[in-house]
Each structure stands twice: as structure tokens, then as C-alpha cells.
């Protein structure tokens, strides 16, 4: 028997402070009003974090405004770019430390943070560093202007990566920022603040305020903020859109999704099965663009499900710090409860849930990768975003039926299409109401590639030239 021995990465690669204040005006404030942040795989406390108050938010916005007026807007693009290049380089230098920190605070496997998250963080900064002195080519004419001060709120599923998606283009375009990481995953943002210091970024250009939803609401509502960028749930996105209605504030919103992953009978089946697994089980399914609905052509339903189940038996669930772990911990007790509730609802409505046998560790929050078959567009598990490693399976007979079912959602973030026929793929891409269409692949991200949704998945794009536009005046 070939059993893999434990292969743990070393926790010593990162040292957290006992407690953290906010990062405002280039300095850390004294910790106050603190709450604990934990490792969801073990429930151990990692550090104490400050809960941002109205005064903290105001302080941060003032620092951002001062930096914008006095320093940042007076620098030429080439110089802004060089700061971003410095940040990118330091991220590369500290990449292993950042990967360990992210795994400890988020619960996702070290292999993912090491091989996916952190490299994308570095490449996002590298990419946008190169735009800073080329804004004339953004598509808004010569000399486009920044908005000014931007409030950015990022979620817990890809903490540092979402921070990079927000800060890099904002700074490249000439804005200054106040960013709030999610309450359960603040640590890599605080390490990023240290990186800003190492890069000698001028004070106040980047400010990090930690806290909960109320802190975020204050950042959105502050009168001296010109633009909001938010990634998170559709519910909160809706609140923000209402909050800024009638004001001059611009917003981009990256919200939820319920993507259809469509497998045609002429797909490269083994790769399609990999794509299904990658689409919903990568990052424990905590992905807004997860392929959470499998639409499989009826003629190949049996072989696909059979291969999928066999493949799922090889998924390794466990200690996120073990280099061989595929699925890590669920980020919080709240999220675990939600996933469990929805799956039970799915079974109650007539679906059949199946999971491979997984040894579930004692402490921490865990959910085995699960598929629910025998469900249809009317069922809760097909309509609602579960945000966990749960795949709902439906069938279709014709391309038209696949399109209708795929589009039958209030969301429209992403979609997957699996077929060896080019003309079919391109026609599907035309017809699918999704901001990102992945053909014969899934969950591909690149700083050069615009990402964002239709409908209630939000508006605005991140990545590419399009991702720059939302940080410049003359665009939404």
C-alpha cells in the first residue's frame, strides 16, 4: 500500500505578533477594541485584531486623502509603477512566509497558497506596475485622472489575492486606498502593510483598517471617499449599492455566483472530470465563480458520474499545512453551519447526496466533498449559493436546453463548457450570460484577463486593461 506519510510545511516560517492595530498613515496604531482571529483547522487563536471604529475609519480616510493630495497625485506614473514593482518583488521574496500565513488564517491547503494564491498576488502587482506609466493607453484618452480615495472591502476566501486585485490597479491608476480585510482573515493584509513599509511606499497611500461589517459600512458611507470596491456576498453588495445611491460615489462589486459547468457528450471526458473537481472542490468550494452546478449531457451522465466519484475517492481532506492536502478546513463555524443546512435541505427536497469516505479531524471546521444528484432547477441547492464543496448535478439533452438551464439564475459570474468542437464552444460562449466563460478548463485567473459578472454577480471587471478602467475617471 502506498500511503503518503505526513509532509508538513513548517509553521515557523511566519511569526505573528500577539496583537495588531490598524495601518494608517504609514504606521501601525496601538491595538484597541480587540477580537481574536483563529486557525479554522485547529480553532487555535493566532492573534488579537483591532475592531475599527468610526474614528479609525475617519483617520484612515484622512491619511489617504492627504497622501493623495500631497504626494501620490504629484508623482509621475513611472514612479508609482516602481513602487508597485518593489512591492511585487518583496511579495516574491516573502512568498513562502505569506503562503503559510494565509493557510494558517484561512484554512486552505498550503499547496494552494504556495502554488496558486501567492504567485497570483505577485503577478497582479507586477502586471499593474507596468500600467502606471501607460494610462494614456487605457482607452479613456490622454492623461486620465484617478478618482482619489478608494474604500476597498475584501472577503475571506482569497484574502491576500483579493487584496492584490484591489490595491494594485487602484495605485497604478493613481488612487490612494483604505482597505478592510474580512474579519476572519485579517493577517495577510497586516503582513502586506509591513511589505508597504519595506517598499518605502509613501505614508497614507495604503491604509489597512480591520474590523467587521459595521467597519466596512462606515468605509462605504464616509463622505470623503470617491469610490468603493467590494468583493463579497450579493446581499451586502445590494446594501452598498443602496447606500451610495444618489451620491457621486462610484462602485464596482464582485458578488456571488452559481456557475454552470456544462459537459457535452463529445468532451475530453477525463479532463472534464478534472475540471468538475477543480471547479467546485478547489478552495473548499469557497469561490464565487465555483462550478457549483454540473450540467451533464444525458447521454454521458453515467460515465461522467462514475468517473467523478472514482476521482473524488482520491481527494485528500485534512491538515491544511500538510503539502499533500487537497481540501482544507471550512473558514468558519458559521459557514459550516450554512453548508450543512443547505445540503440537508437538498436531500429533503428529494436529492441524493454522496461523498467519498473521508477521515474528518476532531477539531476545526470540515466538510467532505459532496455531490447531490437527482435535483432540478426548482431545488434550493440548484438556486442558492452554498459556498462550500457541494456540487449539484443536472442533465440536459440539447445545447439550447443547456443554455436555458445555465442562464436560469439571478447570478451570472462564470460558466464552464466542455466539448472538443470549437464552433459549439464559441456559440455557447456567445449565448451564456456570464462574465467569464471557461472552455475546456476552469478557475483560470491571470492579471491580464478581465474577471467579473453579469446580473446579481455584480458589475465592473478586475484584471486586464478593463480592470484598470474602473479606477480612472470617465469610467464607472
Amino acid at each position, binding site marked *: 500500500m502506498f500511503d503518503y506519510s505526513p509532509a508538513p510545511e513548517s509553521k515557523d516560517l511566519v511569526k505573528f505578533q500577539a496583537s495588531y492595530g490598524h495601518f494608517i498613515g504609514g504606521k501601525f496604531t496601538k491595538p484597541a477594541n480587540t477580537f481574536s482571529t483563529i486557525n479554522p483547522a485547529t480553532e487555535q487563536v493566532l492573534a488579537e485584531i483591532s475592531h475599527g471604529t468610526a474614528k479609525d475609519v475617519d483617520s484612515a480616510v484622512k491619511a489617504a486623502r492627504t497622501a493623495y493630495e500631497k504626494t501620490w497625485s504629484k508623482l509621475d506614473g513611472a514612479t508609482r509603477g516602481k513602487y508597485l514593482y518593489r512591492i511585487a518583488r518583496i511579495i516574491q521574496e516573502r512568498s513562502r512566509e505569506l503562503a503559510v500565513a494565509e493557510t494558517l488564517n484561512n484554512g486552505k491547503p498550503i499547496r494552494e497558497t504556495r502554488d496558486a494564491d501567492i504567485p497570483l498576488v505577485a503577478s497582479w502587482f507586477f502586471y499593474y506596475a507596468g500600467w502606471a506609466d501607460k494610462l494614456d493607453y487605457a482607452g479613456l484618452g490622454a492623461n486620465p485622472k484617478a478618482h482619489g480615495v478608494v474604500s476597498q472591502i475584501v472577503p475571506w476566501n482569497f484574502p491576500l489575492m483579493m487584496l492584490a486585485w484591489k490595491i494594485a490597479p487602484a495605485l497604478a491608476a493613481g488612487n490612494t486606498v483604505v482597505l478592510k480585510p474580512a474579519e476572519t482573515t485579517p493577517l495577510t493584509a497586516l503582513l502586506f502593510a509591513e511589505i508597504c513599509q519595506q517598499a518605502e511606499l509613501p505614508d497614507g497611500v495604503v491604509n489597512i483598517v480591520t474590523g467587521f461589517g459595521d467597519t466596512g459600512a462606515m468605509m462605504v458611507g464616509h463622505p470623503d471617499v470617491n469610490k468603493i470596491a467590494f468583493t463579497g456576498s450579493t446581499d451586502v453588495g445590494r446594501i452598498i449599492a443602496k447606500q451610495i445611491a444618489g451620491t457621486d460615489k462610484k462602485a464596482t462589486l464582485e458578488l456571488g455566483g452559481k456557475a454552470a459547468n456544462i459537459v457535452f457528450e463529445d468532451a475530453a471526458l477525463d*479532463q472534464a472530470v*478534472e475540471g468538475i473537481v477543480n471547479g467546485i472542490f478547489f478552495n473548499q468550494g469557497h469561490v464565487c465563480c465555483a462550478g457549483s452546478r454540473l450540467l451533464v449531457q444525458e447521454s454521458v451522465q453515467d460515465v461522467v458520474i462514475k468517473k467523478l466519484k472514482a476521482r473524488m475517492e482520491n481527494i485528500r481532506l485534512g491538515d491544511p499545512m500538510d503539502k499533500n492536502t487537497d481540501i482544507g478546513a471550512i473558514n468558519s463555524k458559521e459557514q459550516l453551519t450554512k453548508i450543512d443546512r443547505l445540503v440537508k435541505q437538498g436531500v429533503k427536497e428529494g436529492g441524493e447526496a454522496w461523498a467519498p469516505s473521508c477521515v474528518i479531524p476532531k477539531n476545526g471546521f470540515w466538510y467532505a466533498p459532496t455531490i447531490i444528484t437527482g435535483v432540478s432547477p426548482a431545488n434550493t441547492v440548484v438556486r442558492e449559493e452554498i459556498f462550500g464543496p457541494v456540487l449539484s448535478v443536472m442533465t440536459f439533452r440539447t445545447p439550447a436546453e443547456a443554455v436555458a438551464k445555465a442562464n436560469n439564475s439571478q447570478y451570472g459570474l462564470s460558466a464552464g463548457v466542455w466539448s472538443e468542437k470549437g464552433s459549439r464552444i464559441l456559440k455557447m460562449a456567445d449565448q451564456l450570460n456570464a462574465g467569464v466563460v471557461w472552455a475546456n*478548463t476552469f478557475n483560470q485567473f491571470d492579471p491580464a484577463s478581465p474577471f467579473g459578472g453579469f446580473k446579481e454577480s455584480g458589475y465592473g471587471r478586475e484584471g486586464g486593461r478593463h480592470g484598470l478602467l474602473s479606477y480612472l475617471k470617465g469610467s464607472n
Partner: protein
Amino acid sequence: MPTIDPEAVVGSRITNQSLSRWLHSLPGVDKVGLEARTASLGTRSIKTASKAWALDMAIQMMDLTTLEGADTKERVRSLCLKAITPDPTDLTTPQPAAICVYGDMVKHAKEALGKNKIHVAAVATAFPSGRASLPVKIADTKDAVNAGADEIDMVIDRGAFLSGNYLEVYKQILAVKAACLRKDGTRAHLKVILETGELETYDNIRRASYLAMLAGPDFIKTSTGKVSVNATLPITLLMLQAVKDWFDQTKIQIGVKPAGGIRTAKDAIKYLVVVKETAGEKWLTPKYFRFGASSLLNDVLMQRQKLTTGHYSGRDYVSVD
């Protein structure tokens, strides 16, 4: 031993047309997806006890190979002695599965191996090119079988495959398989080399795998080791998927042998991970998985030494063969 009815599998009488239809109806292979899956499996971290197990298994799965024009009786004898005692400093070291030589060297190998359990595999059928008439290729095979070869590694006719003459490829395999029968009713074990480097595309490699499996060999093998692209991890993953699907369909278990270009213990362990997570544990035995290699053995021995002693070894502490 279970057998299949090829006509039942293909769905009609075996003609070039029916074979073509059958092979071209197999699902395609997406190159980017296949290579990404392989790369991901390559990140598995195999340490301590699992590493020790893997290193020992890798040795047991080796077909220790010498296939040079300059081979002589003494050269073959020296390699056989190495196979019998791979590491004189550690007599717990397991032995490889087989020695692999040209047909006219089989008698020397048999003599040198004596009563050891190590098999003698012979390459045959105008290896490596396969460019000779069928009678010549059969005579080549019979010579090796008569000299005492336990296993025959044949090559398919790539020219026939690439020009769509699938029936020719199939018939040649059946003919060689028949030539493996001995007078006493036993038969030499047959491995079919696809020469994946010449087939180039993954779609071709899947089709060639199925065509070969239809003829009922014991193993399908990637390469001769004599062309610029030999065994690779994605190709091997693809072939393991093929044998797994074949088993699900027919209950017949066929082995896989990657050959050529596998030089380090690290590589060999990656292959074992691919076997485990594709075809499964049933293939993790020399009966169903082999490495065609030569310099690999010493690197595995050095890794083995490091696990025992705790420090890195060197060239002087493993024997030249």
C-alpha cells in the same frame, strides 16, 4: 485468465473501417488539462516511510536495460551481476524485475542470471524502428523466445498507424503474440511499445493504447528510449487511464511501462504517485507496472542510502554496471 471477444468490444467484425470507427469514437484528450493534472500530481510530497516504500518498489519495478550496438557478453553479464546485487553495502536491497537486452544477448543474460528470479526481457520485431517485413519481425521474436526470453518487448508499426492502417498494426501484434508461444504451451510475456514520441498527439496515444489492448498483450509500453521524446508523466497518466478504463469495461488488467528518460528517484516516485492516483493500488506491483531504465537504479540506491545514513551519498558509493 479472462479473455475478451474483440468483435464484441469493437461492435462488429474486425476490419480497418470498424477499427477506425471504434478508435475515433473514443473521447479526446485535452493537452492542457492533462498536463495540468500531471503537474499537480507532481507536487505530492513523499517523505519518510512512504518514500522508503516507494524507493524499494521502484527498484522492484525496474527492467534494467542495455540496448546498445556495442553490447557484448561481458557487458550483459556485468549488468546482470548488478541486478543480482544492486548495492553490496546493503544486502536488503531488492532486485529489479528484469534485465532488458537485444535478442541475441538473451543467452548471455540467462547464463549470468542463473537461478535468480530476475526475468530476461528481449526487445524484438526490428527494434527500435520496426521497419522490416513481418516474417523478419516474427523470426526476430522467435529467436528471442527460443533463447529463453521470459518477456518480449515488441514495437508497433508506427508508419501503418499514422497512415490509418489500424488493421495492419493489430494483425502484427496478434502475430507476435502467437510467436511468443513456446512448444510446452507456456508463453513469453508480451509488452507492446507504442513509441509515443513518434505518435506525437495525446489523441493518437489513446487510440494506439486501445488498439494494442484489443490484441491482448500483458503490457503497453511508452517508448523504445531511442528517440528524442521518450516516457513522460502525462503520457504515462494517459496510458494508465486507458488500462483502468479497459479493466472497467472488460475485467482484463493490462500493465503499463514507461521507458526512457527516467533518470532520478524523484521522477520515479512521481510516476508511482501517478499510478496510485490514476489506475490505483492494483497497479502498484511489478506485475502491472515497470520502469524501463538504466541510470535510474543508481540514483534510487543513493536515495535509499541517504534514508538509512541520514546524509547525501555520491557516485563512488554505488557501482558502475
